[in-house]
């Protein structure tokens, strides 16, 4: 395939990858929690979209109005019931890794129990349609997903930059102690951020439902990819998540073109190794000295 064509296909996917990674990096930034269950909740949202589509004939993109608030609430409740008791632990980081790993297993188990392990996907009309722009092939579904992702990411950015709550979230990301000292209720902000991160997972799930076939244990592959994206960008940096996601999506598109689709996942893990060797803090991450 020609260069521009591969580049375009990579960029189209980069938007959705950015959306999925942004929730994960937001949580890390605010709470220093790597939510290993993030992709599992994306799959939950994908199932919600799947059943709304199959049973009620709702367009998967429209299911976002359901998946986002549902996942937001779930996130807030989950944070408030599970995390505060870990805060005083001397091994907070290890505890949260175990907790989110456990959550991922539970979610996967429940999904398999209720919805079986069959491959699912929603099939709105646009998912299989495409058109040519000059001589560039554009899949319509991916273009729609890119558009929705951009709208949501710009919304997230505006929320963080221009609202008081958003400013408090940014302050907490930059310096939790200082945020507390200027009067930010960091527990409330953490609960809210967990909710926002989960809402982003919700929207991602709705889009994923028609972009990539899924089944319960598929989330392991996704969380591994998402981790490589945010490690490249720098943990806790939203700008980093977007840059990491877009560049690796494009890189994966080229690897697929040259070596075949089997090699596409290798791109992410190779990048992960390289980043950890050369620049462990990532592109926009900050160096933490202990």
């Amino acid at each position, binding site marked *: 395939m020609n260069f521009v064509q591969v580049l375009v296909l990579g960029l189209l996917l980069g938007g959705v990858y950015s959306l999925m990674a942004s929730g994960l990096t937001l949580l890390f930034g605010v709470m220093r929690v790597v939510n290993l269950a993030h992709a599992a909740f994306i799959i939950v949202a994908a199932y919600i979209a799947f059943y709304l589509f199959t049973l009620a004939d709702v367009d998967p993109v429209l299911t976002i109005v359901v998946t986002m608030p549902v996942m937001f609430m779930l996130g807030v409740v989950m944070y408030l019931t599970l995390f505060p008791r870990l805060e*005083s632990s*001397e091994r907070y980081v290890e505890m949260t890794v175990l907790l989110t790993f456990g959550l991922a297993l539970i979610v996967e188990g429940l999904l398999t129990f209720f919805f079986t392990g069959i491959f699912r996907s929603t099939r709105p009309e646009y998912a299989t349609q495409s058109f040519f722009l000059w001589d560039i092939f554009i899949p319509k579904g991916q273009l729609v997903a890119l558009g929705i992702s951009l709208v949501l990411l710009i919304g997230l950015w505006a929320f963080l930059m221009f609202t*008081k709550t958003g*400013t*408090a979230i*940014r*302050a907490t990301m*930059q*310096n939790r*102690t*200082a*945020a*507390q*000292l*200027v*009067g*930010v*209720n960091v527990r409330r902000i953490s609960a809210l951020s967990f909710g926002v991160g989960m809402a982003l997972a919700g929207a991602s799930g709705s889009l994923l439902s028609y972009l990539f076939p899924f089944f319960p244990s598929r989330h392991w592959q996704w969380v591994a990819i998402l981790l490589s994206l945010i490690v490249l960008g720098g943990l806790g940096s939203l700008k980093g998540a977007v840059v990491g996601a877009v560049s690796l999506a494009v890189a994966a598109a080229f690897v697929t073109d040259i070596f075949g689709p089997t090699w596409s996942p290798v791109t992410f893990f190779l990048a992960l190794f390289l980043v950890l060797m050369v620049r462990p803090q990532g592109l926009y991450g*900050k160096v933490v000295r202990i």
Partner: protein
Amino acid sequence: MTALLELSETRAGYGAGPDILHDVSLTIEAGKSYCIIGPNGAGKSTLLKLVCGILKPREGRVMVRGESVGGLRPDQLLARGVCYVPQERTVFPTMTVRENLSMGAYSVDDKDVVEQRLGRVLELFPILDERRSQIAGTLSGGEQQMVTLGRALMVDPSLMMIDEPSLGLAPTVADQIFDTIRRLGETDITVLLVEQNAQRGLESVDWGIVLDLGKKKFEGPAEGILDDPRIRELYLGAKVVSRESEG
């Protein structure tokens, strides 16, 4: 008259660890300025963290203007005029100086009030006025310390607790910071300073409090407290004890 801050037989420590403060009792009156001195590990910083709400008392009481505040969150204490400037640098590194200062007034909704206080802080720290659009993480250590002090002033505090402001600063820069602290002490803000450099700390306040091993030893007018024979005993005595335990 009720004291601005009163601790009675308060115990506190970190996590599941041992008590750092043992039955501390002390009274801070409004309008005076104080410096707590004492050897390493005396519990000076722990005391400030307790009062600002980062730590909760295990026993005893912490009272602000007669109201028991032990167990309240930092934002709730801030609403009662108690603010804390920690010893580690705590600017928001990717925000500008101006944003950092505005963040100090996070709990204030009235924009005019925020602007008015911002003007006052920038008057107090002219260098910050020059640097208002600069990203805080790129400032020098002394300037960052000024940002943190200025940010704390944005809540219009009645009690301002400052932990080791001169830590890691060049002597001339530290001079400026101490000078600022002395000027703050002359306003209606009550300053409670913790300083490793006892000499410099005491020069900037009215009253000295000596803390050792989590207890208040004694207190007195800042001027002359260092000549007290008990001070020598405290610092030198503590050294002898530690040598013995090493041997």
